[in-house]
C-alpha cells in the first residue's frame, strides 16, 4: 500500500476476534460468517486492486433483522464495520480494515416487486444493476443508469456511489432514478426514506445517502424508477484532426438544444489501442473520435442525426459515419466499451482516473496531461464522457517496475489537481474512497470538510461505519460540535434596518 494511512487497528477488538466471530455466528447462522484467511482472501480488495487488506471477519447477512443486529452489536462494542456490495468500487470504497467486520450484502439478491403502472421496481441491495433491467425488459422497460460494471455491480453499491454511466447526461445519475430506500443505521435503527411517491418528505436524506460511500448507513432495500425503452437508437462516429474541434462540436450539439443519449470522446492513444484490439473500423488518422448516440422515436432520431452531422462538418470533422443497422451501432460502441481492456493490452497495468471538468477546458487539460506524461515518463490514454465533462485518463505503468505505481499515483493526483484548478472536481462517478481521500483538501477547506463530517456525526457519531474512507482526517464528533463564535459583534452597522 503506497503510503496510505488507514485508521489504527483497535487492539481490544483484535484481541476479542474469536468471541466476535462466535457472536456473529449466533446472529447470522449457517454459512453466513467467513473467518478463515484463505476464504476471506476473495474479499481483500475491491475494483481498486492496488490496495488489499484482510478483514477481521466476513459476515453475509440474509435479513434486515440480521443487519440491524450486527450493526447494533458492533456499535455497542465499538467495532468498526465496512459494508460491501459486489466489490466493484474503483476507489477502494469497500477496502476492508484489519479490525472491521466486512458486511457483505450479496445475499440480498431478490427483486421484491415490479409495478408497471407506477414504473417502479423494489429490489434488495445485492441485485445487480443489470438484474433490474433483466427483470423488466420483457415488458419493454429498463433501468437507465448504466455504469460499465453493470453486469456485476449491485444496486445498493450504486446508491452508495451515486453511479453514473454513458447515458446519465440525458437520463440522470442514480440519485435521479432512486425513489426510496430502506436503510439500517449504525445503532441498528431501521429507517425508510421516500417510497414509490416522487418526492421525499422532510430533509433530503435520500439525496445525502446517495453517494455517501457506505459511511452513513447500510442500504437494505431500494425502490427505483424504470423507463420505457426508446423505440430506436442510432449513433454517429465522428473523427476530428484536433481535440479542440471535437470539443467545439460537443458544445455546438448541446447549443443546438440536443441532449444525446450518449456522447463519448476518445483521444489518439485510446483510439489506437481500441482499434488494435477489437477492429471496430475506427479512423486512425484523427486526434479525437466522438461517438454520438441519439435515441427515441425513429422520426426524432433521423431528424437529429441530420442536425448532428451538419454540426460535425461545420467543425471540420474528417470522417463521419452514421450507423445504418443495430449491428453497426454496436460496432461503433465496441471499441469504446473495450477501451479499458484494450489499454490493458498495450501496458502491463493501467490506473483509471475520474475527474470532471467544465467541457470548454478540455484542450487545456489534455495539453496539461501531455506535459505531465513527459514529466513522469508514463503514457496516458483518454476516454471522456464528453457530454458531462467526465474524464477517464488511463495512466499506463508497470507495477513490476519498482516505483512505477507510486509514479502513476502521483501522476493521477496531479491530473486531478489540474481538474480542480480549471473549475472541475476530483471524481465524477467513481467516488472518493481511499483513492482520492487525501486529495479532498484540494477541493474543500477545513470548514467544508468539517460540515460534511458533522453530517456523518448525525448518522454515526462514533465513526464506526467505513472509517478511513472519503475524509483525510476524521475528527471526533464532540470536537466538531464545539462552537467558537465572537459574541456581541454587530457586523455591519451601516446597513438599513427597519
Amino acid at each position, binding site marked *: 500500500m503506497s503510503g496510505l494511512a488507514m485508521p489504527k487497528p483497535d487492539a481490544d477488538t483484535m484481541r476479542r476476534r474469536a468471541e466476535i466471530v462466535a457472536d456473529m455466528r449466533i446472529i447470522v447462522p449457517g454459512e453466513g460468517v467467513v473467518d478463515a484467511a484463505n476464504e476471506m482472501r476473495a474479499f481483500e480488495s475491491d475494483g481498486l486492486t492496488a490496495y488489499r487488506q484482510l478483514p477481521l471477519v466476513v459476515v453475509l447477512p440474509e435479513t434486515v433483522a440480521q443487519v440491524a443486529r450486527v450493526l447494533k452489536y458492533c456499535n455497542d462494542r465499538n467495532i468498526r464495520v465496512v459494508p460491501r456490495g459486489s466489490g466493484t468500487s474503483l476507489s477502494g470504497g469497500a477496502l476492508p480494515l484489519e479490525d472491521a467486520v466486512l458486511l457483505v450484502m450479496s445475499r440480498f439478491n431478490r427483486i421484491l416487486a415490479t409495478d408497471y403502472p407506477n414504473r417502479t421496481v423494489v429490489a434488495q441491495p445485492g441485485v445487480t444493476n443489470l438484474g433490474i433491467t433483466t427483470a423488466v425488459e420483457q415488458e419493454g422497460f429498463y433501468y437507465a443508469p448504466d455504469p460499465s460494471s453493470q453486469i456485476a455491480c449491485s444496486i445498493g453499491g450504486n446508491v452508495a456511489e451515486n453511479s453514473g454511466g454513458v447515458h446519465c447526461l440525458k437520463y440522470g445519475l442514480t440519485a435521479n432514478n432512486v425513489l426510496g430506500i430502506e436503510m439500517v443505521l449504525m445503532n441498528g435503527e431501521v429507517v425508510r426514506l421516500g417510497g*414509490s411517491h416522487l418526492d421525499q418528505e422532510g430533509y433530503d436524506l435520500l439525496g445525502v445517502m446517495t453517494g455517501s460511500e457506505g459511511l452513513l448507513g447500510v442500504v437494505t432495500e431500494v425502490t427505483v424508477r424504470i423507463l420505457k425503452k426508446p423505440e430506436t437508437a442510432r449513433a454517429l462516429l465522428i473523427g476530428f484532426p484536433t481535440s479542440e474541434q471535437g470539443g467545439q462540436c460537443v458544445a455546438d450539439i448541446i447549443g443546438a438544444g440536443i441532449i444525446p443519449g450518449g456522447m463519448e470522446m476518445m483521444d489518439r492513444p485510446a483510439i489506437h489501442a481500441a482499434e488494435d484490439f477489437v477492429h471496430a473500423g475506427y479512423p486512425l488518422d484523427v486526434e479525437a473520435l466522438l461517438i454520438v448516440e441519439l435515441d427515441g422515436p425513429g422520426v426524432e432520431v433521423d431528424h437529429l442525426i441530420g442536425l448532428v452531422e451538419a454540426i460535425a462538418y461545420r467543425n471540420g470533422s474528417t470522417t463521419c459515419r452514421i450507423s445504418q443497422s443495430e449491428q453497426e451501432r454496436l460496432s461503433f460502441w465496441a471499441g469504446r466499451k473495450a477501451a479499458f481492456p484494450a489499454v490493458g493490452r498495450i501496458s502491463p497495468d493501467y490506473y483509471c482516473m475520474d475527474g470532471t471538468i467544465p467541457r470548454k477546458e478540455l484542450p487545456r487539460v489534455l495539453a496539461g496531461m501531455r506535459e505531465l506524461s513527459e514529466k513522469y515518463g508514463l503514457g496516458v490514454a483518454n476516454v471522456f464522457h464528453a457530454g458531462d465533462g467526465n474524464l477517464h485518463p488511463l495512466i499506463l505503468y508497470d507495477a513490476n517496475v519498482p516505483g512505477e505505481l507510486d509514479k502513476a499515483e502521483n501522476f493521477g493526483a496531479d491530473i486531478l489537481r489540474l481538474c480542480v484548478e480549471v473549475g472541475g*472536481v476530483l471524481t465524477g462517478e467513481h467516488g472518493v474512497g481511499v483513492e482520492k481521500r487525501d486529495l479532498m483538501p484540494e477541493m474543500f477547506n477545513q470548514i467544508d470538510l468539517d*460540515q460534511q463530517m458533522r453530517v456523518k456525526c448525525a448518522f454515526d457519531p462514533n465513526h464506526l461505519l467505513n472509517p478511513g474512507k472519503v475524509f483525510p482526517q476524521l475528527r471526533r464528533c464532540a470536537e466538531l460540535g464545539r462552537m467558537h*463564535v465572537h459574541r456581541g459583534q454587530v457586523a455591519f452597522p451601516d*446597513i*438599513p434596518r427597519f
Partner: protein
Amino acid sequence: MTTFTPSSSAETLSTVQWAAAEETPLELLGHGSKRGIGRPLQTEHTLDLSKLTGVTLYEPAELVLSAKAGTPLAEIETLLTENGQQFAFEPMDYGPLLGGEPGKGTIGGVLAANLSGPRRLKAGAARDHVLGVAAVSGRGEAFKSGGRVVKNVTGYDLSKLMANSWGTLAVLTDVTFKVLPAAETEVTLAIRGLLDDAAVAAMALALGSSAEVSSAAHLPERIAARVAGGKHGSDAATLLRVEGFGPSVVYRIDALKQLLGKAGPLEEIAGEASKAIWRDIRDCRPFADGGALPVWRVSMAPSAAHHMVMALRMQAAVDAFYDWQGGLVWLSMREDDPEAELLRGLIRKHGGGHATLVRASAPHRAALPVFEPQPPHLAGLSARLKAEFDPKQILNPGRMA
C-alpha cells in the same frame, strides 16, 4: 425588531455569526412568496436576502448557471429564455395560491422549498438539478458543497440536503444549477370526460408507452374550467404533454392517440395554449381563489392517490385535482377544518406518502404539523442533522416542526 439586509456573502456571514453569538433566532426571507408555508415564526429579527442578488456565472454551452441566492427567479428565467434554455424542473410559483403577487420568489427559495412543476415526472425537482451551493450554517460558518459540473460525487451532497430544508439548516448565499435546452415544440393531448379512476389508468398507460410524455395531469369536472381562463370548458380533462423537436412531437402525439383513442374524446392543444394550461396547473391556479380555506399538497404513488381521495370524500367536503400521473394531489377543503388526522390516516392506509398543509390560517399552522410528521427513528435522525447544522436553533426555528 431588526431586519438585516445583506448585499454580500460576507455580510450574510457576519449577520449569522452575530445571531449565533447572541443565540437570537432569525427568520430567513427572500421575497416572502412562500412565507405562509410552515409553522408561523416568532423571531425578533429577520434576515432579508432579497438584496443578495446577481447571476455570477452563466455558460449556456456548459449547461450551468450560478447566482446569488436572493436573485429573482423571474430574472433568471428571462435570461434562460433568451438563450433557448430553461430549468427543466419547472419551479412553481406559490404566489397566486397564497394570495400574493405572481412572479415573485428567489432562486434560493426555489432550492430551499425544492420546487418543481408538472415536468417533475420526467425531469425531477430542484434537488435533481442543483449542482452546488455556498451557505452559512447556523454555527456561523461559511461552507460550500458540490461544484459547477454536472457529474460530481466528491464528498457528501450537501447541496441536495438544502432542498426542502426551508431555511432551517443554513442560509444559502450562492446556488449553482444545471440548465437544459427548452423544448422546441409542445403539444398537449386532452382526453375529456373521464372519472378519476379511468383518468389514472389512461395516464399510466401513456406514461408506460414510449411516447415520452413529460407531464400528465387530471382535472376533474368543473376544476377544468379553472385553468387557462376557462376557455377549455368545464368537462373533466386528462392532460398529456409531449415536448421536443417538431417531427418527434407529431409522431408521439399520433402514437398516443392510437393508444388512447377508445378512452374518450380527444383534443389537441398546442403552443401557447398548452403552455398556459401547464402554467396554471403548476401554480395550483384552480385553488388560487383569493381565499384562505386549507389547501393540501399530497404526494403518493400515482396509482394509489385517487383511492385515498375517494375515501376522503366520504368524510369531508373537498375539491381535488391531480398532477404527476396522479401522484400529486392538490386538495382544497370546502370548510375551514384542515382534517389533518383524517387525511394523514387515509394516506397511510392507501400505501403511504405525505401531506403538506400549504395554505391555512396562522392558528391552524400553529396548531397542526404543516409538514408530514415522521416516524420516531427518522424524526430522531432529522433532529440530529438539524443540530449539526444549527445547534443553537437560530435559523427559522420551528418552521418545519
